[in-house]
Structures are given as structure tokens and as C-alpha cells.
């Protein structure tokens, strides 16, 4: 398992994406799949900055853990921001074209499973994004 912590500000989002990219093996995922996974993690990280940390907080962190076994990739995202209410996260209807609301849609479209885990000791929110290896 690979793990890193990032300051919870929008200028760090590119570093989160670079961290994930560096741990995706070309034997496990095609170039398109890799780009899509990076997009999904990018969207989830952006949601943490925007919503859990209300635009960003340089005193707070986002922890990203990557775990790969022979069948699945797991990307864990942890934060200490405002608790998420999973029932309130609804992707928008694609036919209703407007700015905003696409992030949750992309995450759900790309990943095979999206799950919020129970609150832990050190972190408020723990999101797990899962992608099956072919």
C-alpha cells in the first residue's frame, strides 16, 4: 500500500493526481483506463477541497492511499472536513446541461464501486474508490 498526505488546497490537486498516476501500472490498466481513474480521483479530491473543506484549508490534509491486489485497485481518500452525507450526493441529469454537478457522475461512471466508510479515529470522511482489474 502506498500512502501520502497533501495539504487540502486546490493547488495541490495536481500533486494528488501525479501521485496516483505514478502508482498505476501499465500492465494493469490501459492508457484510457489510467486517465479515467486519474479523473475520478481528481474529482473526488476536488470535492473534498470544495465541500469538506469549504474551498480549501491550508492547515488541513487529504490522505490518499493506493492498494492494488491481483483483482482490484482501491484508492482511499481521507479528510477531516465537514462530514459527508452520502444520500445527498446525487449526480445531475446529463440532459439538464448546466455548469456544475458532473463530478459525482464521472466518479460513478468510471469506478466500479464508490463507498463511504464509517468515521475513523483520525479522519472524518473515508471514501474508497474501487476499480476491477481485467
Amino acid at each position, binding site marked *: 500500500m502506498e500512502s501520502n498526505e497533501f495539504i487540502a488546497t*486546490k493547488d495541490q490537486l495536481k500533486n494528488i493526481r501525479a501521485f496516483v498516476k505514478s502508482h498505476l501500472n501499465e500492465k494493469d490498466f490501459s492508457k484510457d483506463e489510467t486517465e479515467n481513474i486519474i479523473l475520478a480521483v481528481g*474529482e473526488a479530491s476536488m470535492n473534498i477541497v470544495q465541500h469538506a473543506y469549504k474551498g480549501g484549508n491550508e492547515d488541513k490534509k487529504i490522505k490518499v492511499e493506493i492498494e492494488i491486489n491481483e483483482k482490484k485497485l482501491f484508492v482511499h481518500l481521507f479528510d477531516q472536513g465537514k462530514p459527508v452525507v452520502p444520500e445527498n450526493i446525487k449526480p445531475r441529469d446529463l440532459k439538464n*446541461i448546466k*455548469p456544475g454537478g458532473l463530478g459525482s457522475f464521472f466518479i460513478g461512471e468510471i469506478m466500479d464501486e464508490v463507498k463511504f466508510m464509517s468515521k475513523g479515529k483520525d479522519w472524518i470522511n473515508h471514501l474508497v474508490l474501487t476499480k476491477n482489474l481485467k
Partner: protein
Amino acid sequence: MEYKAELQGDKIIVYLDGEIDLDKTDAARKSIMDSLEKSNKIFVNLNAVKYIDSSGVSVLIEAQQKANEMEKEFYLQSPSDAVMSVLKMAKLDVFFKISN
């Protein structure tokens, strides 16, 4: 930061590049909206965009809607594969006018 905007005849081309994420969207929005005030025909060149997420796509949607209100022409020019992939996923490849 500002993205390059070039006047070519009767149109302005705004060149976005690199990774368009939440950190870059304010600058992208400003560059495009400023150009919409100055010309009736705007192209946003996306050939050098390596990554765009929902925040970047939102800026493009806002700009298209603003152009519609102002009755101005708005095109996405030469979108990279990364951009087209995201637009297709959101079924927005038919919403925008795309020019090569």
C-alpha cells in the same frame, strides 16, 4: 495568470493548455469571458490541454451559455483526446460546436 488570447481577423482564439482543474478555472473563465466582451466570434483552443475535469467543463458550459445570451459565436477548437474523452462521457460532444 492569464491564458493567451489572439485576435485573428474577426475572431479571438483563447489558448488553454496543460491541466484545467479547480486551480486553473478562475483564470480560464476570465480569459474566455474577457474575449466574449471583445469579439462576436470566440474559439477556445484545447489542443494542448492534457487534463480537464468537471470544473473545467463547467467553465466551457458557462461560456457557451453566455455566448448564446450575447448572440455570439462560440467554438471549441481542436480539442485534445483528453478533452474529447471527458466531453463524450458527459454527452457534451453534441452540445458544443467543435472546430478543427
